[in-house]
């Protein structure tokens, strides 16, 4: 079947999609967007986290056909999305959350990073100054096997502080 939806602000069409195929597979294998990672395929790890009409979801648990007509945001579109949201016209810059992950050393192997970035960015959009408990709760669906999470928490705090100072 054919599936048509908007990804990172661009209208995309995927053809010959199998009816049981996940949104994640379509993004990675048909649309050339490998930023969202494929790991557990059962919603346990969060490495495929994208926003579907604004809501953070595991792309592996959304059937491609369910995304028909909707807006999807992946890590590839995060910088543009954050820029439009803040109204700052500086091109070719990372989003504040991406910058903070770099600066805090929250990235080791990097596999979980795209999902964490999408989840953390959505948290800060909703709640610009989250408590530690709120950060932990918002990221509870994203597993990282390298960092021990402390640097990731540092990064989210840093991003929140940075936005607060502006």
């Amino acid at each position, binding site marked *: *079947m054919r599936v048509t939806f908007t990804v990172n602000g661009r209208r995309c069409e995927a053809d010959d999609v199998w009816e049981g195929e996940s949104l994640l597979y379509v993004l990675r294998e048909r649309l050339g967007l490998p930023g969202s990672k494929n790991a557990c395929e059962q*919603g346990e790890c969060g490495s495929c*986290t994208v926003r579907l009409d604004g809501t*953070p*979801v*595991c792309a592996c*648990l959304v059937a491609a*056909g*369910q995304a028909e007509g909707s807006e999807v945001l992946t890590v590839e579109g995060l910088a543009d999305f954050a820029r439009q949201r803040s109204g700052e016209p500086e091109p070719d810059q990372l989003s504040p959350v991406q910058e903070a992950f770099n600066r805090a050393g929250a990235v080791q192997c990097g596999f979980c990073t795209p999902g964490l970035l999408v989840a953390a960015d959505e948290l800060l959009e909703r709640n610009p100054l989250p408590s530690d408990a709120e950060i932990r709760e918002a990221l509870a*669906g994203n597993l990282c096997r390298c960092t021990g999470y402390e640097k990731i928490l540092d990064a989210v705090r840093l991003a929140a502080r940075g936005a607060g100072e502006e």
Partner: protein
Amino acid sequence: MEFLRPAGWEEALAAKAEHPDAVPLAGGTDIMVELNFGRRRPRTLLDLSAISELHAVERTPSAVRLGAAVPYTRIVEDLADVLPGLAMASRTVGSPQIRNRGSVGGNLGSASPAGDAHPALLAAGATVEAESVRGTRHIPVEEFYTGVKRNALAEDELIRAVRVRPAAGPQQFSKVGTRNAMTIAVCAFALALHPGSRTVRSGIGSAAPTPVRAPEAEEFLGRVLDEGGYWESGEPVPPLVAEEFASLCAAACDPIDDVRGSAAYRRHAVRVMAQRTWEWAWAGYRPGAARNDDEGGAACV
């Protein structure tokens, strides 16, 4: 495989009547796992995610009509005042990503004994609104679960909503798992006090082939509260009553040994949760009474 995407409820019912073997798909948090792992290859998927009726919550003084596909996140955020037990249980489902997609309708459709919503629905006295082109049935939730991952739906029926009376008394929920997030219940317990009807209802998850109530325990506790005049006085209830109630709840279990826990552990855990949820609930019924927050004994929020 065929992918049907009805735009409205009537169309969905017609599609289900025409394709009785179609597998309903909403949040996808169960079905997509089965598809991803090749465990299931249905001939037809019936995507219900575009149907606005299923995402609606209707509140009247006598009932909350919760659309089958309302995600857990909304139950936590919007319905904790009227459905406190279900909101507590919803709070323990998976992760934010899962709660954004998963729904009570999905829990009921899958009918896993470990579904987090079931104990709270049993304790609150929910009814399941099952609909087909032939008409609507209102099924008491305790009659809905018919076996391990089996439910009372006819093959042309879909779950439209769940109806629950707004809470008129304290409700509690407790769940045992290996961690706080992303955990399937080893077992779970829910309790609701219904001062209007002077009754107590319970729900046990993951400790029998289906989610179950503990009728003898409910009857015992209800009788003690009634005969002792406790509903009126709100006085502390003797600890022996809590112990007997908890024992009767444990006796209502029919658990198995599996990777998540042994049958003996589950029975023990249900006993502990029954006693604690009762103490929390009764403390909630007596305004001004001090809450006993011993370590490990804190109520879910």
